[in-house]
């Protein structure tokens, strides 16, 4: 626990990614496998199911700290972090535990879920009393599950690659899907690339998604149009549909298992040959055309899907790539070859729709055709370099997204302020941030574009997640991602980001994106042209 708390502090103390990777590498090489597996599990954002009600945790904390409930709440408002508030309020630490991380997690943290309240309370108080300030903070973070320390999965993967000597792409793949953070998994994760039979954690495991880069300058700079396979850019939920050992798995890009939410696609899986993985976009799809994405949102939130909603908003998988066929990994095969295999296995009249290839060979014609994007309910074109492999993550060069105007940027809600008039006392005026060297920098303000219902939802979020107040301005936990659309962009020394945009508005709430998926200052600067 000591080394882990130090790692947590080290990650927290630097904004520089190289230093974060170095700290991770140091910890992961030195830690015993049982500790390293748990640390990695939490650092990439996985967490146990709810362990206990935070209300109880709070009560035991304020009682141990000797402060009344109201004062605990005042402190929480000032600190803006539940785990940290508790760590700061507890009586000064007298001890420091030398028990390992896996002891605390396996013997004290995981059993909390099933224990009675008196036992839970006893364990928590005992843990606090045995830990120093930094350990208490890391421990509270583990319990509350709010474990973000400015470390993205890709940084952890870099560190794991450095520790093991296994290529980052392979490590990233091994981390996908479902697995348990055991020493055995840790060994398999770091095993040499060639060695090892497919272990059980590979059954439902998706491949790391290949992501497109936005076309930033003139599309002609990418080369000839003929060098690319061109498809429409569909506006849905990116997903991989997997069929292995008679089972079907549908994964989102955020590595959420969505099979149960899309029975149409679970049924589709059963039609696929053994050992198949298809990459595509889940779309609300009816009568051979997409429905507005907002229709999809009616489905996403529901726990149970009645026959009515299934009839009103059916979905299809707009399939555009084949990653695995007959159990073999196809990702190094050229694009056209994968496409041909995909076409060959596509079950006829099913929920699988083949993403049409646009047969135009000049940029000029394509630019013209691209004007139809809105009418076609697509976002522009995807340009995929012919002959290219299926790469891991967002790499410049092979996959490009050539979106239609207006400009659009995915940004994170960082400040909110109550509106006026009809919107008085509702948080409706938002400031959005984009990433600049690992920090969210204010980029644009936007007030319009959300439905009243979405505004109410965001308002409730702001009230629950205000970290700090500067007069009327509430700084919120950076969690919500919105697609901002705007008409013009130019450099501006008066703006913190160095960029000013014209008529920014919220084009869409990107519930499917995490804050780390938001755009960076570099990609936004490139829009200035």
């Amino acid at each position, binding site marked *: 626990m000591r080394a882990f708390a130090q790692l947590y502090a080290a990650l927290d103390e630097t904004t520089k990614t190289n230093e974060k990777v170095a700290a991770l590498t140091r910890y992961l090489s030195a830690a015993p496998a049982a500790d390293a597996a748990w640390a990695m599990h939490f650092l990439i954002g996985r967490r146990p199911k709810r362990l206990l009600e935070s209300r109880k945790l709070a009560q035991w904390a304020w009682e141990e*700290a000797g402060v009344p409930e109201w004062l605990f709440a*005042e402190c929480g408002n000032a600190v803006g972090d539940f785990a940290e508030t508790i760590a*700061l309020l507890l009586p000064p630490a007298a001890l420091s535990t030398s028990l390992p991380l896996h002891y605390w997690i396996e013997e004290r943290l995981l059993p909390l879920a099933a224990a009675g309240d008196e036992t839970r309370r006893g364990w928590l108080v005992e843990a606090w009393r045995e830990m120093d300030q930094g350990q208490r903070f890391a421990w509270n973070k583990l319990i509350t599950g709010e474990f973000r320390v400015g470390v993205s999965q890709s940084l952890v993967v870099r560190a794991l690659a450095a520790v093991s000597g296994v290529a980052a792409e392979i490590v990233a793949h091994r981390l996908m899907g479902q697995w348990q953070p055991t020493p055995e998994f840790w060994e398999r994760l770091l095993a040499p690339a060639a060695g090892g039979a497919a272990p059980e954690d590979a059954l439902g495991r998706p491949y790391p998604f290949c992501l497109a880069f936005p076309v930033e300058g003139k599309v002609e700079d990418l080369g000839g149009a003929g060098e690319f396979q061109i498809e429409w850019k569909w506006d849905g939920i990116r997903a991989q549909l997997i069929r292995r050992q008679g089972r079907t798995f549908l994964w989102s890009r955020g590595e959420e298992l969505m099979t149960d939410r899309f029975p149409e696609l679970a049924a589709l899986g059963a039609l696929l040959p053994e050992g198949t993985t298809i990459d595509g976009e889940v779309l609300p799809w009816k009568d051979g055309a997409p429905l507005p994405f907002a229709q999809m949102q009616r489905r996403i939130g529901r726990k149970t899907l009645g026959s009515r909603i299934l009839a009103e908003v059916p979905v299809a998988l707009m399939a555009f790539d084949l990653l695995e066929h007959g159990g073999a990994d196809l990702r190094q095969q050229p694009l056209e070859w994968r496409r041909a295999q995909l076409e060959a296995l596509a079950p006829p009249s099913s929920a699988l729709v083949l993403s049409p290839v646009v047969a135009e060979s000049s940029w000029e014609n394509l630019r013209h055709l691209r004007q139809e994007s809105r009418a076609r309910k697509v976002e522009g074109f995807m340009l995929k370099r012919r002959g290219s492999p299926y790469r891991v993550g967002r790499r410049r060069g092979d996959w490009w997204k050539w979106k239609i105007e207006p400009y659009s940027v995915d940004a994170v809600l960082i400040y909110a302020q109550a509106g006026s008039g009809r919107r008085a006392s509702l948080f409706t005026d938002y400031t959005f941030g984009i990433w600049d060297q690992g920090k969210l920098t204010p980029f644009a303000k936007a007030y319009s574009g959300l439905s009243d219902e979405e505004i109410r939802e965001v308002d409730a979020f702001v009230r629950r997640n205000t970290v700090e107040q500067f007069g009327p301005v509430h*700084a919120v936990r950076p969690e919500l991602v919105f697609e901002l659309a705007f008409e013009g962009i130019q450099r501006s020394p008066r703006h913190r980001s160095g960029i000013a945009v014209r008529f920014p508005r919220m084009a869409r709430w990107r519930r499917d994106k995490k804050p780390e998926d938001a755009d960076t200052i570099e990609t936004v600067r490139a829009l200035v042209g």
Partner: protein
Amino acid sequence: MALLELRESGLYCAAGDFYLDPWAPVERAIVSHAHSAHAGCGRYLTARGGGALVAALAGPEAAIEGIGYSEPVTMGGVRVSLHPAGHMLGSAQVRLEQGGEVWVFSGDYQLAADPTCAPFAPVRCHTFVTEATFGLPVFRWPALGETMAEVHAWWRANREAGKASLLFVHPLGLAQRVLAALDPAAGPIRAHETVARFNRLYREQGVALPPAEEAPGGRDALVAAPPSCHGTPWEKQFGSASTAFVSGWMRIRGTRRRRSLDRGFVLSGHADWPALLGAIEATGAETVWVTHGYRAPLVRWLEEHGRRALAIDARFEEADW
């Protein structure tokens, strides 16, 4: 009988016709310490050690009278004396007495030992006007030695990595407290011109500070600079330096992260929660007026513990330290 009342320009003593730490220019002001918010007044009364500092902020024309600690003067019918507040050189609590009624106005204060100024002296009173910049129990300061050990470890690590150490700290008061606690043998100490200017005023008052030249210095240097320099072109001359901020606010992780700093060190010229409660207790006051910062929580706490307490308005908030 109320010796103080809140007026448009600040806390006013009608019996003596003067203001305490006014936030707008007034004819007659008693100032607890040098603070730019009190500039522009006709005449000032302050503690002798702080006169030069008040002059530095109030301008050369200001009429400033300095008196020694515990040397009473009479203003109108009010007996006024100043008592050390421990906040910075020449900082003072203001004691007012009339007809057996005693009020003490704390100004900014803190209780820990500080070689650059006289230590806080508790003064018994009926009504105590206290600040509450850090009036929540999450604010609990580590010992100076603990914080300085962290500063030195950070500085050493930076030297080994070939990086300058930029230490942002309020340039008047807290900067001198930190400089006095630095080990000059650990490496070259440098000061931004604003800090250096206040260092000279401190030295003129006989406060020993380590040499801290204005020259930029090498990559092994620790540079004390005002927080306003952070993120400005001034920083560029140091290349890829490590940045840190010294302040009570650094107790909270979010306030450090928001500033894009590498490190935050917890040290303050203000009382933490235990010190606020201890200072209030030591005055024996029946009534406590609370101004600046987290007023409402401190007021509620005091009321729940058997004192009369009241939050009073302040039109400016203390600088961020």
